């Protein structure tokens, strides 16, 4: 089990004059699947971006801890994997080239076996050398999972993980989530019942607050 911890304390976010949420607390450690649900516009994606350090909260603090030591924001990218519809890959490169470039920029190594396994697992092995601009939206979604998993992250964030996927793709994603959650933290932001059914803990963002729906 991973020794990664995430603590979000009194998180508030305001865009211009619009309040998104206020004084939201969230913590998780070790392993498990956490779901974040809420109506459209409630701030699920915004909350995910804040706890991954992509954007800053208006108020509050997010802390990431690994092996008892706080992880600096400059090194957080080595520990987290992120899949979302708004994560865009480079169209002018092939799938394999994208993964190679991203890994070198991240400063991580991987084995060819692992890469091939992930491409096989997500069903795009035969198209791995094709340019991403020729990929369908579902194939791009599958490639995003490979991008998120190749460096063996300790905490995974999935925003609408099954968007654009066919039933076979959804099954692969659910298998992956259950497998990863044995040793790592998985956080899913979704309104799909099937996605949230995997979660051991579900929280709902509503009326600018977060409440625990299921434990």
């Amino acid at each position, binding site marked *: 089990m991973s020794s990664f911890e995430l603590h979000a304390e009194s998180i508030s976010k305001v865009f211009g004059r619009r309040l998104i949420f206020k004084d939201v607390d969230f913590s998780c450690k070790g392993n498990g699947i956490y779901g974040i649900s809420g109506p459209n516009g409630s701030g699920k994606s915004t909350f995910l971006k804040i706890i*991954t*350090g*992509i*954007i*800053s909260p208006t108020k509050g603090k997010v802390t990431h801890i690994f092996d008892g030591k706080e992880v600096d*924001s*400059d*090194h957080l*990218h080595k520990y*987290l994997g*992120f899949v979302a519809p*708004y*994560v*865009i*890959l*480079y*169209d*002018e*490169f092939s799938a394999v*080239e994208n993964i190679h*470039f*991203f890994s*070198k*920029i*991240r*400063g991580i190594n991987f084995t060819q076996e692992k890469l091939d396994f992930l491409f096989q697992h997500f069903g795009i092995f035969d198209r791995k050398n094709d340019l991403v601009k020729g990929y369908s939206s579902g194939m791009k979604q599958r490639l995003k999972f490979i991008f998120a998993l190749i460096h063996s992250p300790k905490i995974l964030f999935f925003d609408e993980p099954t968007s654009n996927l066919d039933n076979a793709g959804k099954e692969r994603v659910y298998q992956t989530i259950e497998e990863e959650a044995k040793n790592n933290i998985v956080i899913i932001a979704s309104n799909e019942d099937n996605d949230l059914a995997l979660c051991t803990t579900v929280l709902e963002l509503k009326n600018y607050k977060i409440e625990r729906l299921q434990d």
Partner: protein
Amino acid sequence: MSAYALFKKDLASELRMRYAINSLIMFIVVTISVILFSIGNERISDFLSGGLFWVVIFFSAMSGLSRAFVSEEERGTTLTLQLIASPTTIFSGKLFFNLILVFAMNIVVALLYSALFDSFVLKNLPLFIYAFVLGNIGIAIASTLIASIIAKASSKGTLYPVLSFPILLPLMLTLIDLTKQAMDGATFESSYVELAVLGCYDVVMIAASYLLFDFIWKD
């Protein structure tokens, strides 16, 4: 190494898409052609030819150096980069790419200019080379930082030269002065102050860039 990997990614992307390279080459050729046609058979003064040289370089930089960050924003890959690297790595990689682009672009401009303008004669070539190298470094650093600022703005094309002008002005004035001195055959000793200004400009800009980029890059 991560910054170098980002530079290699940008280089590979540029070689495939050829967006900045093609537009820069066309811009340089068109600009120099327009100057040549405007001058006609007249012989322009040394100072004017030196000044025009850096004017061409300034506007070439404005047409091409913003691509480093603007292209990421337009394609939506900014968030992807935020997920895989620290702000320092991102800035270093983009700066390295712009440095290579600036040097390549300006060497072409210098060679074309020397070949086409009779009045552009450098009596102290080493002095010009020193100024050229330090000046290009300053242009690359300032342009990269400003590109990161305007990448998220709506009217990027207008904003980029408007924001760049006051920041690059001290650099351009010093470079024009040094070019004139190189054309007059001035010695290094007599140009020491201007060379020191260039060196200090580069140091100040690089320090300010790394200090500020964290705040620019993250929302």
